[in-house]
């Protein structure tokens, strides 16, 4: 589904990504972790072309992201993305947030888009909030709406860029619950996160990055039981300490 082959990226002389390669197969959940500044957010933004890269190739559902001829809007319309800071559109009601892209990008009729949006809103447990604006919801609620907004586009896969990093601790679980459910339904997911509990529960593989390189790319069990690299061992020791 997502194939990342030898991707390198630099800003001027600063190397952000070096020769990154990994695969996400249909129905797989991949967790990408690593210390801050390791390039994991940059990598996931390369997958739907929000960040350009200079070398290598990323193929999503058979379409090359880096190819200048690729119709990126069309590709992105079916690759859901959830951001660290939610990025709901503050001037629109929750209902409008859920329907605007369905109408303007997919060309769905308004009532059909609204029906789909409200169904997903119900699924993330926020049906009663459809008329409100994003600023009137808590962070956890906003992030659940953001997930529903991405799902409303009927994505073939979902990208999560640190979806719980900006949340208060007591709101993290409500978002993770939605994500776990999604994973268990067989959604293809690439998730940048530090939530190792989530990784243990639903990930198939864990990709560990450090200084712009993929240091470790292993099945979940192997990654947690016997990380091969010293850097991953240190990282795990630190975040699993408490």
């Amino acid at each position, binding site marked *: 589904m997502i194939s990342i082959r030898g991707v390198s990226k630099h800003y001027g002389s600063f190397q952000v990504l070096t020769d990154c390669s990994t695969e996400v197969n249909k129905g797989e959940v991949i967790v990408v972790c690593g210390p801050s500044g390791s390039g994991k957010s940059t990598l996931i*933004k390369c997958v739907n072309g929000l960040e350009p890269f200079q070398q290598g190739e990323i193929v999503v559902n058979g379409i090359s992201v880096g190819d200048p001829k690729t119709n990126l809007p069309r590709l992105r*319309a079916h690759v859901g993305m959830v951001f660290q800071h939610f990025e709901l*559109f503050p001037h629109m009601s929750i209902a409008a947030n859920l329907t605007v892209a369905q109408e303007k990008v997919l060309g769905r009729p308004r009532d059909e888009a609204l029906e789909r949006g409200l169904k997903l809103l119900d699924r993330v447990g926020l049906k009663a909030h459809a008329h409100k604006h994003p600023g009137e919801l808590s962070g956890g609620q906003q992030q659940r709406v953001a997930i529903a907004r991405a799902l409303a586009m009927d994505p073939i896969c979902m990208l999560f860029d640190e979806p719980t990093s900006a949340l208060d601790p007591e709101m993290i679980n409500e978002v993770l619950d939605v994500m776990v459910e999604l994973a268990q339904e067989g959604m293809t997911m690439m998730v940048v996160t530090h939530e190792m509990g989530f990784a243990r529960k639903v990930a198939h593989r864990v990709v560990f990055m450090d200084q712009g390189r993929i240091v470790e790319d292993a099945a979940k069990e192997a990654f947690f039981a016997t990380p091969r690299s010293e850097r991953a061992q240190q990282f795990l020791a630190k975040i699993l300490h408490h």
Partner: protein
Amino acid sequence: MSYAWHWEVLLQPAASGDTTYLGWMLAGFETTVALSLAAWLMALLLGGMVGVLRTVPGRLWSGLAAAYVELFRNVPLLVQLFSWYFVLPELLPPAWGDAYKQTNPFLQQFFAACVCLGFFTSARVAEQVRSGIDSLPRGQKNAGLALGFTLAQTYRYVMLPMALRLIVPPLTSEFLNVFKNSAVASTIGLLELAAQGRQLVDYTAQPFESFIAVTLLYMLINVFVMAGMRWVERKTRVPGYIGGK
């Protein structure tokens, strides 16, 4: 100071014979309002486009937009006005220039002043629009693009609606400035409010009454503009957002 107040001169028949001196002043008031509103409309349209271009990726368009802003913002308003009024007709093909000079002088003056104020103000509006767009969280653009919007759609549905709301307060003062700047049109002979005030002094020899009346009329415009812009602010307020509710 001994000054003989004669407010009643305002109601005396004016030298033109068809109205009172107050009538002259109200005619000037109408010209000021018409000129300023036309220029403001032009400034909003042009300034909006140029402000957006300043923020798009790609050097060519943002560079051209930056040059536009620098040109119209840095040349003094009066110089710009003289250029439009005195210089431009000379630069046109002679047949056009002659045709232009034979149109109604009021229209010539009004047109030059409107275009001048419109371009001058558009450069300032463009800067406000740019700063509004720049002040949005960077992730908003990504969120729009990630949903499959084109860049143009992302501006249309995601960035501009918020950016324009953010700049309503600074735009209010730009709007007020158009009315005040419109007084320079008196230098090319357009009989707008300030020019009528001066003409009244010449004819009635009552400078205080004339200019107090002019001042009150400008203040009246300000009151309306501020009330109008506050209405816009209230109507576009976003619930739950900073400054909202």
